[in-house]
């Protein structure tokens, strides 16, 4: 009785979602040197997840073929950081964390740079590989 009960409740701990490549747009949709918000579906969304299965990322095109995809989660407590294009900074609305355009910490409490998603160009499309929310360890 106990084992199935624990197994059922704690199942999410042991379920590993596959890493899936998700298309977020065509290469031409993004200008070199610009950072834009993109969103994509999680790796294996539950049928009733609806909009909660979506994840956003900040996609920066650094050259003709190179992209960086940043997690929107502040490394302090996970709040969604906003890109301020004219300042070239990511700013967090919760506790005032700030990051430079390369995701490194510029100011405030964040203990680590913004996490990154693997990103590739595939058949003229930009694809981001899904991954779990970055959890900062103690």
């Amino acid at each position, binding site marked *: 009785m106990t084992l199935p009960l624990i197994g059922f409740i*704690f199942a*999410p*701990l042991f*379920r*590993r*979602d596959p890493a899936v490549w998700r298309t977020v747009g065509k290469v031409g949709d993004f200008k070199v040197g610009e950072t834009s*918000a993109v*969103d994509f579906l*999680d*790796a294996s*969304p*539950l*049928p*009733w*997840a*609806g*909009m*909660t*299965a*979506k*994840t*956003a990322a900040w996609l920066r095109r650094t050259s003709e073929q190179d992209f960086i995809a940043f997690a*929107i*989660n502040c490394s*302090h*407590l*996970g*709040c*969604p*950081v*906003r890109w*301020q294009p*004219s*300042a*070239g*900074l990511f*700013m*967090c*609305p*919760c*506790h*005032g964390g*700030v990051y*430079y355009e390369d995701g490194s910490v*510029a*100011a*405030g*409490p964040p*203990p680590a740079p913004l996490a990154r998603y693997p990103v590739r160009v595939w058949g003229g499309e930009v694809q981001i590989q899904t*991954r*779990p*929310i970055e*959890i*900062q*360890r*103690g």
Partner: protein
Amino acid sequence: MEMLQKTFKNAVGWIDDRLGLSATLGPMLRHLVPHDARWWYVFGSATLCAFMIQVVSGVALAFAYSPSATDAYPTLQFITHDAPFGNFMRGLHYFGASAMVLMVGLHMAQVFLFGSYKFPREMNWMTGVLLLGFILLMGFTGQLLRWDQNAVWSVVVAAEQAGRIPLIGEWVARFTLGGETVGGATLNRFFAIHVFIVPALTFAFIGLHLLLVLRHGVAEPPKAGEPVDPKTYRANYQALLKKSGRPFWPDAAWRDVVFCVGMIGAIALLAVVFGPPELGKPPDPSIIAADPRPDWYLLWYFAVLALLPHGTERIFMVFGPLTAGLLLIVLPFLAPSGERSPLRRPWAVVGVLLTVTVIGALWVVGRKSPWSPNFSPEPLTAQIVGATSGPIFAGAQLFQEKSCIDCHLIQGRGGLRGPDLTFIADKLRTSDMIIRIVNGGVNMPAYGAKLKPAEIEYLVAFLESRTKPLR
């Protein structure tokens, strides 16, 4: 008629006898309490009263609420805007929760100040501390069931904090999220915790808490110079009850009833006048423009997490709450006997005043959250800038474009994160301004690589023009 009355009386008597109601509950209700346990003693029953409101309004809300990632938000919209009395029911549940947090705080402060946690009531206190934990957990998980944008980000913030626990942090974080990201499984976990697990624990511990009240009796109001001595306390207490004790029902209980009724009235009034918190944007984690904030009873802790010295939060996030909880739990063992009167325990009074002041101050600062950038500051007018062309004007434009204004005030416009720069030229020399702009600081980005030399010159020209007008 007389026969009918007799039959009814017999029936009532039969039910009472077979169920043993009077026999069981009678002595409990009539147990003796100190004659001078008066209005200071109503907060515990008021907490219970607020809990009953939560149970009733919560069950009512469950008639319409659908705990599913997709449906929860629309059903809440329906409850709030369409269902008859839905708005009132949500208001009742929200202000009931607020009352419960407030009353448990008052109850705890009173018990602490009266030294009632000392021998032999240590377990009363310890079960009470657990109940406080359950109430806060209920408040937090309840906020998440609102399942709007704020709720989604609160889950992430909770998971990130859980992640700081040594060794098992990542597991606890994944357990909180119900997977690797927020998704279809997230809400249901909090629904189960909020609606089944924590209320069941709360019921059980309230039962135990009340049994312990009956076992050890209601503590008499403390008198200075009458310390608790475990050897003699029980005998003295029994003698006191024998001499001047009053039955709880009705001599003392009427105050609880009056206070409870008054509180229910106040909660209902607040629910009608103010209504429940408005729902935020939909629970879509890809909407980036979010401004997550906890409900008022945890807003002070939100402020703590912003104000901790950088680098310490890693340790604090886990050991801060853990230490506070442990300290509260073991309190009866730190001071198990001795004086109970607050007149002889000045440090206890200072402790309560300090706690209230600190939490109050953090709450005020949390509401304002000056550490958060102002993402939509009012633009600087030509009058404020004092120029419509030239370096000062160009500097003012840069000040806004480069988000300096998001964190600094100029004549009341801008953010509060950094110092107010309205009269900065009176305080800083030009060279210092340049150093700060180029190098940044703990809470300011270094702009050295972001600005061209000419742009720095313009910015400085603008800042140099920020002086107090000559009188």
